[in-house]
């Protein structure tokens, strides 16, 4: 039987399938409430005066300029570092590859502000390294502002670049390189004409990803930006000053580059890159592209990056477990007991509970959405699809801003509830899962589902008994990713916390900003312990079905 198309037919089909209809209606309602409504609110709230203020004062122009400059430079640095690191891990014969893969995974565990905090503790004017340099070499480090920001953002976002580049480098077929070698290309010429050329689209992609992340970064600039003012930080200030109009204007400006990047990326991805045309890697062929000397150079480079990352973790742990590191190095569990294991200070527990709930919901929502959009086409499914992926393009600061502005006044009041925090986390993570699941759905033949339908199962039952088990791996992987991100997010929820719902990332940020470094470090350690133990439990439940600790 030929499938019929057309609106009438699809509506008719939906009417005969009430559970699908229900799923569609619920997901549309949720997306309209939590994506479109807040967005509309943000656009609607500023008046002409706010726009004039923004474009009239040099303070904001400077912040905008600074943001563009620093994000571009950071993204450039992070991409270069990520590329070289990935190249070394995937293409060279250096020793300790497993170790380097493990180190690149570590920053994912850490809250985003931790790199800023660790940087302060190491390289701030009073930091451990700075003090050492001062007393031994009489050199004064002053990295506040742009230089410090570049270093911290490079370290924080290099894993993102590294992972993207690893994917790209692995998909390049060794055939090509071997062919080029047979034709006489060696060394740098081989690298330049084949490897680099083939990975260019991937490099561009990594650069853009890192750039929009830097653009919206809030915690690090706030901690170490000094007088170098940035847009995301200015937005925060205006929210504090009770100027939601002005904050909205800046929020919208913050979104523009993200949307552009999003658009460029979609173009890039839909066109396909060189690397996929060459086909799958051929097993058994091992490329030898680096000389002994290059191997050593790459080893040195990767060791330096790894040293940076490990030092970050080491200094945080040292501060968490000593009275006041540098002045009083006595071991103590005091800080941990005071701010982690204390019923009056439940920030880590709050983070854990909210992240878990939000990640489960995000994955469930993504699954339902992908199912109805791929499998049950209905009028308006394109609009729904667009709304669902839109939050990917929105910076965290903007999502938080939109939610707090829309739900603290107007007809729907949700301010002060945990719901708003859960919604914010969900919005940022759901699109990632949704994209992945949409792709998986397209790969799975729909005949099994049709068989189930023919045997009398409705959409809900099909989803639960057929689809979910088949997609279990993807679902769990998405959950793990969403969970780790939610545990560590700061910019999305910094506006949304209340005394009842302080979350760990915000605590770390607040303690670091008021100089209570040992408490900041203790919460960071507590948060990482909570993340690790949750991942451990997930690993125990799903055993070999999920890859979490495989590097």
């Amino acid at each position, binding site marked *: 039987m030929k499938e019929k198309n057309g609106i009438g037919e699809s509506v008719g089909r939906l009417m005969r399938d009430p559970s699908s209809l229900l799923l569609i209606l619920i997901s549309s309602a949720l997306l309209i409430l939590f994506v479109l409504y807040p967005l509309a609110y943000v656009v609607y709230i500023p008046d002409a005066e706010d726009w004039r203020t923004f474009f009239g004062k040099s*303070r904001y122009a400077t912040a905008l300029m600074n943001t563009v400059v620093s994000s571009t430079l950071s993204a450039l640095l992070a991409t270069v570092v990520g590329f070289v690191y990935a190249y070394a891990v995937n293409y060279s014969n250096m020793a300790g590859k497993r170790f380097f893969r493990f180190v690149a995974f570590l920053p994912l565990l850490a809250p985003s502000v931790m790199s800023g905090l660790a940087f302060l503790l190491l390289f701030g004017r*009073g930091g451990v390294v700075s003090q050492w340099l001062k007393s031994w070499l009489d050199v004064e480090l002053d990295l506040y502002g742009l230089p410090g920001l570049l270093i911290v953002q490079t370290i924080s976002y290099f894993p993102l670049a590294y992972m993207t580049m690893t994917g790209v480098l692995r998909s390049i077929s060794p055939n090509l390189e071997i062919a080029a070698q047979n034709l006489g290309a060696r060394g740098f010429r081989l690298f330049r004409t084949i490897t680099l050329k083939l990975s260019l689209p991937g490099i561009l992609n990594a650069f853009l990803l890192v750039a929009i992340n830097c653009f919206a970064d809030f915690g690090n600039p706030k901690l170490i930006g000094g007088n170098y003012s940035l847009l995301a930080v200015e937005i925060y200030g205006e929210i*504090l*000053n009770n100027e939601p109009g002005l904050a909205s204007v800046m929020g919208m400006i913050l979104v523009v580059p993200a949307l552009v990047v999003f658009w460029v990326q979609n173009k890039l991805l839909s066109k396909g890159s060189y690397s996929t045309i060459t086909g799958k890697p051929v097993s058994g062929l091992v490329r030898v592209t680096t000389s002994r000397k290059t191997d050593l150079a790459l080893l040195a480079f990767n060791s330096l990056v790894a040293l940076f990352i490990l030092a970050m973790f080491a200094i945080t742990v040292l501060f968490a477990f000593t009275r006041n590191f540098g002045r009083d190095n006595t071991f103590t569990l005091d800080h941990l007991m005071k701010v982690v294991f204390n019923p009056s*200070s439940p920030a880590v527990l709050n983070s854990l509970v909210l992240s878990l709930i939000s990640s489960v919901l995000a994955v469930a929502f993504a699954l339902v959405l992908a199912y109805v959009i791929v499998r049950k086409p209905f009028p308006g499914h394109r609009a729904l699809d667009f709304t669902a992926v839109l939050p990917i393009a929105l910076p965290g600061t903007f999502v938080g801003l939109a939610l707090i502005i829309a739900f603290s006044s107007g007809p729907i009041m949700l301010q*002060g509830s945990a719901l708003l925090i859960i919604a914010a986390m969900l919005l940022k993570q759901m699109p990632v899962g949704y994209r992945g699941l949409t792709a998986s759905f397209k790969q799975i033949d729909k005949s099994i589902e049709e068989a189930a339908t023919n045997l009398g199962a409705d959409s809900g039952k099909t989803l639960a008994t057929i689809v979910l088990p088949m997609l279990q791996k993807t679902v769990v992987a998405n959950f793990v990713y969403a969970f780790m991100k939610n545990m560590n997010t700061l910019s999305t929820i910094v506006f949304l916390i209340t005394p*009842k719902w*302080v979350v760990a990332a915000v605590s770390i940020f607040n303690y670091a*900003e*008021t100089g209570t470094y040992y408490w900041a470090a203790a919460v960071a350690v507590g948060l990482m312990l909570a993340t690790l133990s949750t991942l451990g439990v997930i690993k125990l439940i799903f055993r070999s079905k999920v890859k979490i600790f495989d590097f």
Partner: protein
Amino acid sequence: MARRKKNSTVMIVSVIAVVLIAGFFLYKSGWIGGKSQGKITVYSIFQEEEARKILDQFKAETGIDYDILRLPSGEAVSRVQNEMNKPQADFLMGGPADSHEVLKKAGALEAYISPNAKDIPDNMKDKDGFWTGFYLNPVAIGINEQRWKEKYGSDPYPQSFKDLLDPKFKGEIGMSDPATSGTAYTAVASLAQVWGKNEMLTYMKQLLPNLKERPKSGIEPIQKAAKGEYTIGITFLGDQLKIKNQGNPIVSIVPEAAGYEVGGLSIVKGGPNTEAARKLMDFMLTEKPALIYTQSAYAVSVKPSVPVPPGGIDIKTTKYNQSYSLWTAAEQRKELQDALKDLK
């Protein structure tokens, strides 16, 4: 068989997870474990360490547990104002009284005259009981002696605000942003009262190149100065003494025209647990919390019976601006902050 077993493990784990999470929410909302008389929710402008010490004591005496969020005073003011149709907090702890005065004007506070407020002088509490003073703290110039010696040798310390304009201090001073920090606002509001608004603005403009940074929280400059990030931090005297008494080389100077804060306490109108907030107000105005606070934060208590802590400085012995009016400061707040935003 094996598969079935695995599925039931998953089931059991999910049931446990759901029960735990539900229990957590019920506990948070006070449905279970309610033998302590509900929770009180506090916005604290105090440093969190001191606030927690006092609230732990309150909890021990009354059985009332607490939730706390530490905020700079500017953020506290805008939060309480924004939440007026659905207040989240019961009690606002600390911060210059002019911020409380702003909230009183906005109608966000609940009047309550505690019987324990009797011995507090009239210029340190609101006559209608919308806020009550808790401590006094003048603005001071805090200098890291060690860094001073390295940079300026035996030069004399700056004694007045104008001395800070010396170009040799380029990038060596930290002062928080008067738009978000009550500390910095107190400093500029006092200058505006003594010199007039325009001269204050000119001064701040000239000071900018010397400022290393303008953080949003009041205490931060002296913490950074103590760590050697820069030489001079402008903060409240108490913050400096506290850090000095932790073993940092800090010297404090209260210059002429230095404003001072009356650290205030107030009850948020329509908060979730106003009953407990009144109890907390009564408790705060007894001697015990005053002692905890002054000994830990080195401010001077508004209660004449509470002694200046060892290592503290009696505000009366300093050159602070005695005619500083926090009421005027509250009135000019918006106007001055807007004008300051245009600097740069």
